[in-house]
């Protein structure tokens, strides 16, 4: 899918330029934008180093664990099919906390572990209710502080690179709530159909 989109954009652009007489611009943009992208990626180093450095401290100081514990009562209500004290719950909580702090690389292995444990619980190759709830949380984007976006805004000389944190958090929360509600809605619909 990504491969198609990527190639499609370039192909459409070049073909359109043939008829539109903008080949000069395309030729220029090709090399300039490659150059810009490299400058941008190197500019991203500052924030990524800073943020991942701070997160390493937060992890060692037990702040991520404390937050996982605090989220436990709320999150366990979302997964009524997972028995109390089951390892799946621990992995789910670690995945959520890592996502909140934008640690995508740490979140994925935890999430995969959680999926494995949930598969042990259900034992089929059909998605279980808990799995779908878990992925609904993940796909609605749990990040509180969008570090990469802030870094990009800095690179393009924003007057206030962090001003979008507030709008990002509100949007995240609303789409998270609607993901949970939609998950509930479709679950009860699927039960009713069985009867």
């Amino acid at each position: 899918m990504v491969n198609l989109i990527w190639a499609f954009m370039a192909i459409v652009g070049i073909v359109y330029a043939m008829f539109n007489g903008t080949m000069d611009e395309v030729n220029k943009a090709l090399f300039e934008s490659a150059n810009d992208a490299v400058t941008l990626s190197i500019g991203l180093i500052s924030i990524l180093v800073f943020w991942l450095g701070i997160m390493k401290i937060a992890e060692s100081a037990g702040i991520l664990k404390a937050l996982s514990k605090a989220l436990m009562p709320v999150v366990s209500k979302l997964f009524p099919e997972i028995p109390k004290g089951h390892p799946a719950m621990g992995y789910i909580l670690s995945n959520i906390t890592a996502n909140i702090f934008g640690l995508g690389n740490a979140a994925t292995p935890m999430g995969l572990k959680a999926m494995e444990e949930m598969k042990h619980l259900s034992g089929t190759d059909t998605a279980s209710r808990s799995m779908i709830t878990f992925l609904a949380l993940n796909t609605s984007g749990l990040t509180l502080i969008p570090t990469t976006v802030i870094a990009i805004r800095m690179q393009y000389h924003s007057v206030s690179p962090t001003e979008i944190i507030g709008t990002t958090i509100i949007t995240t929360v609303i789409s998270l709530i609607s993901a949970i509600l939609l998950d509930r809605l479709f679950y009860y619909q699927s039960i009713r159909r069985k009867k």
Partner: protein
Amino acid sequence: MAIITAVSTWLIPCFLLIVLSVASWKKVPTYELFVEGGKEGVKMAFSLLPFLVGMIVSISILRSSGAIDAMINLIAPVLMTFGVPPEIIPLAFVRPISGTAALGITTELISTHGPDSFIGRLASTMQGSMDTTLYILTVYFGAVGIKKMKYALKVGLLADLVGIITSILIVKMVFG
């Protein structure tokens, strides 16, 4: 609205204050850990580089040819009646499919329209508040051998739609 702006400014410094205070109180070697974690940041930036070069070049070809403007002019009348800026449509469409592709589009929108323009702020909010639904479902279900996804895709994509609409409304409300 003033509260939302204040949260944006205060959140990171306060978080930093809490982390460093708790860590120092627990006698965690803060500076050494910072450096250790920071090394991962260098690696991450370099691993993003080829993705960004690929995506940004492909999008600039499309934009400089004039094809994006032609497409926007075509759909603008319909979207404008709902108050949706047509420039944002490619991002809204790609965001659930690929994270790096969306990051490329966001970057291109920010550089073309400016980070503090309405479109720049909207692209920033959309990029930050959503995740790659299709990618997550494929990876997570694929890794544990789930063949029937049931209603998972419906939930994910509908929640994305809510996210897109919400981001437009919120950015309009907060930044006018």
